[in-house]
């Protein structure tokens, strides 16, 4: 159990947006999160950000500070892929625990859709700054999608996972996103539409892949004592694990177990998996959802697909996941991917998820992932 609480959050609509720059979006998010936390902007004494692809500042967090007219004691940006939003929570916990900072703002936002372009963004992922190894993998022509397609190929061969199991993830996420005002992909998706969509990289079809979205979110954190928020959300435990960087170096394509990390965060939070009311899982692809559920120990290896298709992870099931629609339908805003999971986790614990609100949602897990399961991070949040 940590002493840090999340006092306020902010989220922008995900999808095609009209922000003039990623900096404009970041500053709006930090201001809005501070307002939500009932914190004066100039009380923020540490600012942590993820450097967006849509901008190229020497230090993005300093650019955000400058734009807001802040002179924080600490400002820095982190490079940790889809684990960055959760890693930033962990950094805030450390800074507040040591007295290095009193009030920490974290922000992750990007405009890959309107400022970079879908095709350029996808090509960049396969060629530079993406999960594909530039020398050992790129010459053979894989995209980021292909890396997850290879995991799916292996998982199907080893465990008998099917395309119907993948479809179940895509359809459930879309259904959840349909009632979320900020979600990118809200129009209904039928099983036939899923089935008829083209293959991008077999066995993954178009709707097995997260869209390229603009968007992001921000949080303001402080100590339990200092918080002015009427409904602070506690960070009960947080941690990150690194296993490799490139898929070529991973010991297994079908299992990315993080048992030791899960053991330590569950112990620190003083809970067992059955105490968790919901999980927010990094699902940049449908197969990533199934692999993550198995990595987190919510499903035995090979069983996530059948369990998902049976509704185990739906809102009426045993462990609801991604009530916001996940990266697959809420959106995947470039470098800010995974921030949506954190925001929805906070909103669910506060009881602010509107039509999506789960009953008695007092303990949840949020999960992040980098590249091709290179890194994973988890946090347990509570009320």
């Amino acid at each position, binding site marked *: 159990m940590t002493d840090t609480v999340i006092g306020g959050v902010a989220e922008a609509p995900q999808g095609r947006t009209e922000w003039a720059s990623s900096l404009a979006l970041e500053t709006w998010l930090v201001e809005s999160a501070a307002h939500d936390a009932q914190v004066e902007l100039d009380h923020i004494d540490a600012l942590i950000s993820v450097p967006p692809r849509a901008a190229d500042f020497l230090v993005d967090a300093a650019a955000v500070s400058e734009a807001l007219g802040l002179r924080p004691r600490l400002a820095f940006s982190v490079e940790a892929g889809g684990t960055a939003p959760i890693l930033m929570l962990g950094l805030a916990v450390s800074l507040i625990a040591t007295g290095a900072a009193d009030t920490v703002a974290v922000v992750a936002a990007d405009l890959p859709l309107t400022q970079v372009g879908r095709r350029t963004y996808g090509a960049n992922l396969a060629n530079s700054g993406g999960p594909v*190894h530039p*020398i050992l993998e790129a010459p053979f022509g894989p995209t980021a999608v292909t890396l997850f397609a*290879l995991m799916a190929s292996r998982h199907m*061969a080893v465990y008998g996972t099917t395309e119907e199991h993948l479809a179940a993830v895509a359809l459930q996420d879309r259904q959840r996103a349909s009632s979320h005002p900020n979600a990118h992909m809200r129009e209904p998706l039928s099983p036939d539409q899923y089935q008829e969509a083209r293959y991008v*990289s077999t066995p993954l079809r178009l709707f097995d892949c997260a869209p390229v979205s603009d968007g992001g979110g921000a949080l303001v954190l402080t100590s339990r004592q200092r918080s002015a928020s009427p409904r602070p959300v506690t960070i009960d435990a947080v941690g990150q694990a690194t296993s490799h960087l490139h898929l*070529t170096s991973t010991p297994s394509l079908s299992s990315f177990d993080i048992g030791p990390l899960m053991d330590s965060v569950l112990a620190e939070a003083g809970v067992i998996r059955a105490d968790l009311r919901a999980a927010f899982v990094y699902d940049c692809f449908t197969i990533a959802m199934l692999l993550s559920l198995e990595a987190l120990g919510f499903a035995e290896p090979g069983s996530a697909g059948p369990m998902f298709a049976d509704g185990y992870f739906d809102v009426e099931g045993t462990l609801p996941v991604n009530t916001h629609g996940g990266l697959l339908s809420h959106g995947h805003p470039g470098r800010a991917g995974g921030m949506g999971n954190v925001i929805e986790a906070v909103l669910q614990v506060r009881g602010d998820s509107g039509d999506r609100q789960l009953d008695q949602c007092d303990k949840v897990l949020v999960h992040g992932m980098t590249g091709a399961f290179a890194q994973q991070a988890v946090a347990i949040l509570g009320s």
Partner: protein
Amino acid sequence: METELETGGADPFLAATRGGRLALPRCEACRTWVWPPPPTCRLCHGVVSWEPVSGKGTVHAVSGVHGAPDKASGELPPLFFVAFVELAEGPRLMTRLIEGQGWSVGMNVEFVLAAAVTGGPQLPMFRPASN
């Protein structure tokens, strides 16, 4: 030799396919095959050198890469198959599968040198095993 083993600047596939045969980095001390090629053995930090391998392996995972349709014509680029092949000696390489069809996990394959793009570098690829 160590500069050739560094993945950053050197071309490990040039070293792996010199003379038209497939060779892979192996630790001289603990005899572990180490791919991707590290400056020294990842396990015991011993000296690593290139040793010939059989070139026989099995398909560990495979994906047919369709790509996105051309914006103007709507046509899809040519389909190709990216795979991980597990060699008989143990290491697993990302590669392309060529000269075959109906690819599936577990199929037996053998090493062949080929270019991914016309005029491009010769890379270690795999085709259906001859026997």
